[in-house]
């Protein structure tokens, strides 16, 4: 059966409207389960539709006069977004149960997810910008969702302040690129930048675009909102932003830089943007990991570690070197890293959501001895954290290895070396949390913990998928490879 190429996007957008409609007709009844179920179903359906489209192998479909283009990278990342949204929705079922305005919450999650999947299909700077804002605006509101919680409000304010600034910078960057070229479409831009006469304007525009993407992916220099926003936001929203929103920023950056700003043309102009990304990658991963190692607050540690992971994923842009095979390898590695990271990091944040629900506190010490009262969640946490560190207990091992190998194969072995050192450092702080949970003094023994079904199901699924990707990584790697091929050789 041939599905319309934008089926996943339609599903997500319509589901968001449906959630609002349901709420409009039954404004007073309790329907948290229904809404969470709808959201999760929409997420899974869109991921399934994306997989279906990929399996159908239609190649590249351009729509709306070239404003959108659906290819393997679209379906790959839509699957990531759909899965993360489903996990987040299932976990939110328990997390927002007592909160007002649940329909708005789920609708915002769905709208943001829809925006992300459009970002993955953007083929013009116009759609790119619109999709990016479609993600950002719901995200601001989601971070500030707990209106009576000072942390949430503060996080929302800071996230919004930095976000508004970065989107202004992004728009100005787009306007400069437009001033230099006169076009918005990626394909047209690729032609227009070759031998462009307005190098300064174009260069300034590209640098500002990088700034905009850095905000979305929580990379240096627009990373500083992330610890605040992730710490203050409701934990499922932190999971959503740090996994899906980050991946969305990356796919857009990959699309823009691979499709619209071909490296060869830019090197001819004297703007080798890979170098910028290489520097950003090194600074981002080092800053993220070093800062994470000094944290005492678990959520903040995860936030900084998420910055560190943005640094690893940036290797995919930094290590482009020209030959198709090695470019596909390194971009594919970055894609699969984001895929695995989507599950692993979401799971880790959702374990924090679980801990927040139990009221165990926020610091490492507060988590001490959690393994006694909650062995399953603690085991899941250990698996997820070790996988984030790159130990071979989860798919993160393969993707990190593939990233560093890709960097080496592109001749950037120093970048790989920095990555390896950072990975070693990351193991230090991840294992500190594992140690706190499993080894340190037990909290009041025999305390009965409630078992919120939704969050438990979500974290267990995340852990199972993470481990399954260690055993059978080829599923993701082959898809990521096709996705990378679609962009590199497009």
């Amino acid at each position, binding site marked *: 059966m041939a599905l319309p190429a934008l089926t996943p996007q339609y599903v997500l957008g319509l589901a968001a409207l449906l959630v609002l409609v349901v709420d409009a007709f039954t404004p007073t009844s309790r329907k948290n389960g229904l809404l969470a179920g709808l959201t999760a179903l929409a997420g899974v359906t869109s991921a399934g539709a994306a997989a279906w489209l990929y399996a159908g192998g239609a190649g590249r479909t351009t729509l709306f006069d070239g404003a959108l283009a659906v290819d393997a990278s679209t379906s790959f990342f839509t699957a990531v977004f759909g899965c993360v949204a489903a996990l987040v929705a299932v976990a939110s079922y328990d997390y927002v149960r007592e909160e007002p305005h649940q329909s708005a919450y789920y609708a915002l999650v769905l709208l943001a997810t829809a925006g992300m999947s459009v970002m993955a299909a953007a083929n013009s700077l116009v759609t790119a910008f619109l999709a990016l804002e479609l993600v950002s605006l719901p995200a601001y509101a989601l971070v500030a969702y707990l209106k009576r919680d000072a942390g949430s409000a503060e996080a929302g304010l800071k996230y919004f302040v930095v976000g508004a600034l970065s989107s202004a910078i992004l728009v100005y960057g787009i306007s400069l690129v437009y001033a230099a070229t006169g076009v918005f479409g990626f394909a047209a831009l690729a032609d227009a930048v070759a031998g462009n006469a307005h190098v300064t304007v174009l260069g300034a525009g590209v640098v500002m675009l990088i700034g905009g993407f850095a905000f979305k992916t929580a990379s240096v220099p627009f990373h500083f909102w992330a610890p605040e926003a992730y710490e203050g936001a409701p934990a499922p929203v932190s999971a959503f932003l740090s996994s899906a929103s980050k991946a969305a920023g990356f796919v857009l950056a990959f699309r823009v830089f691979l499709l619209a700003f071909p490296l060869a043309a830019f090197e001819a102009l004297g703007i080798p943007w890979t170098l910028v990304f290489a520097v950003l990658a090194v600074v981002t991963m080092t800053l993220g990991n070093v800062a994470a190692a000094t944290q005492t607050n678990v959520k903040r540690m995860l936030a900084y570690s998420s910055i560190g992971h943005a640094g690893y994923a940036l290797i995919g842009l930094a290590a482009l070197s020209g030959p198709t*095979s090695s470019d596909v*390898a390194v971009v594919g*590695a970055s894609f699969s890293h984001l895929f695995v990271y989507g599950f692993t990091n979401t799971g880790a944040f959702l374990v924090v959501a679980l801990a927040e629900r139990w009221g165990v506190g926020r610091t490492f010490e507060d988590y001490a001895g959690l393994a*006694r009262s909650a*062995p399953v969640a603690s085991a899941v946490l*250990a698996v997820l954290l*070790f996988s984030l560190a790159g*130990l*071979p*207990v989860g798919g993160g*091992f*393969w993707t990190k*290895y*593939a990233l560093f*190998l*890709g960097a*080496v*194969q592109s001749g950037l*072995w120093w970048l790989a070396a920095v990555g*390896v050192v950072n*990975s*070693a450092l990351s*193991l*230090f702080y991840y*294992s500190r949390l594992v*140690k706190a949970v*499993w*080894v*340190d003094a037990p909290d009041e023994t025999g305390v009965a913990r409630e078992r919120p079904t939704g969050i438990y199901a979500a974290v267990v699924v995340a852990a199972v998928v993470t481990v399954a990707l*260690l055993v059978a*990584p*080829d599923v993701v*790697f082959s898809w990521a490879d096709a996705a990378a091929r679609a962009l590199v050789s497009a």
Partner: protein
Amino acid sequence: MLVEALLAVTFVAAFAVLLAPARYAGRLAAVLSLLPLVGSLYAYTAFDGTGNALLGGTPAFETVVPWVDIGGYAIDWHVGLDGISLPLVVLTAVLTTVAVVAARGRIDERRSLFYALLLFTEASLLGVFSALDFFLWFVFWEFVLVPMYLLVAVYGGPRRRYAAIKFFVYTNVASLVLFVGFVMLVVATPVESFGLAAVAEAVRSGAVTGAFGLSAGALTGVAFLALFFGFAVKSAFVPFHTWLPDAYTEAPTPVTVLLAGVVTKMGTYSLLRFNVTMFPDLIRQWALPLAVLAAITVLYGSLAALAQRDAKRLVAYTSIPSMGFVLLGSVAATNYGLAGATFQMVSHGLLVSVLFLAVGSVEDATGTRMINKLSGLADRLPVTAAVLVAGAFGYMGLPLMSGFAGEFFVFTGSFAAPYPHARLVTAVAMFGIVVVAGYLLRLLQGVLMGPFEAPTAVTARSRRDLAPAVVLVLLSIYLGVAPGALMGTIQDAVGAFVALIGGGL
């Protein structure tokens, strides 16, 4: 499929025990640990491999299934057993059962988790010894680390956290270095797979090219050193040994048995597989410094043991010279040296476990491990005393026990080694045996002989507790009387290597 079955059964057993109620976890684990034991004994009898798995030999129970392809490198699920790995697989299965049985009555909290972790460790160890693809091997290698860390950190003695973190950090840094070293090496060769045999072939045939700003020779050297460093930490060669006394002493006895008996053997086994088998030229070239390191390890370990007052710590230190002998035999790269090293791994695994079980039993009975607080226990704890004496004499190299055979093979091989001053270095290392004998006798004399003295009333545990130790002593005697039971298959595997590089005895 036998290897897969072993791994699957053990992993499933670990999960089953994890889910079992704490009351039955011990018994269930004991019963389930018999499955891999029987399986490994079956593997021993049905073993039909020939030659060295890395040198074109035919491993037994071999399976190759393509796993994943990353960056143009094929990574396979490739397992199989040859004459070097088979004895270690059997040793792993035996010692895990021993550890599970020995844990009875010693562990009183979170029991399901404890036994599950023991079985999980066993499964990972079996994977390490049977993997023939670098990535598969590395995955299992790292798998061992996590349960071991938890076993020490959660169930250990008073300084368990320090010991566990030290163990974790040391071995993880080691893993990272060896991983990077090996991947660098593979990237610089034209092979397109991480199969150990393929890489070994490429390195041996000089297909390494310069990369990373290093010449081919320098790169090979760096990779060799990185791998050696990784394995040296794991096997606790001096000066990378400092994690060992802490971890061994703080771990509960059953965990110490696994740690000392098998986990350090991962290092020496991999040393044999990687450093020796893949880099015959370098092992020849650098034999002297490595042998000197081995001699230092032997002497330092034995002298440090002399200074210990804690019986468990003393036994922990005795492990260091034994690993030194393994290194000595490995770098000799002669038939008897390599075979002796492998044999010594098994023998040491058995005997050190006996000693730890005996010391654990003494501690349980008297409440202390301090040698100067104990005296004259022979009358009160006859069975423990007998086991301790048997283990100690086996360790000292009493003929007709496996310790003698292992050390004899190693020294025979090392004397005949082709590197300069081989005899001198070997003789110096042999002196270590005298020191070992000295402090073990001191231990026996102090604890067992003389007038009875102990801080508390002696409460002998039931004799069944020492049954596993008795079994190990009998196994050791069996191997001492009939070393051919293992040496045949071992020599078949190392012979292929020796024939290749033209070593002697």
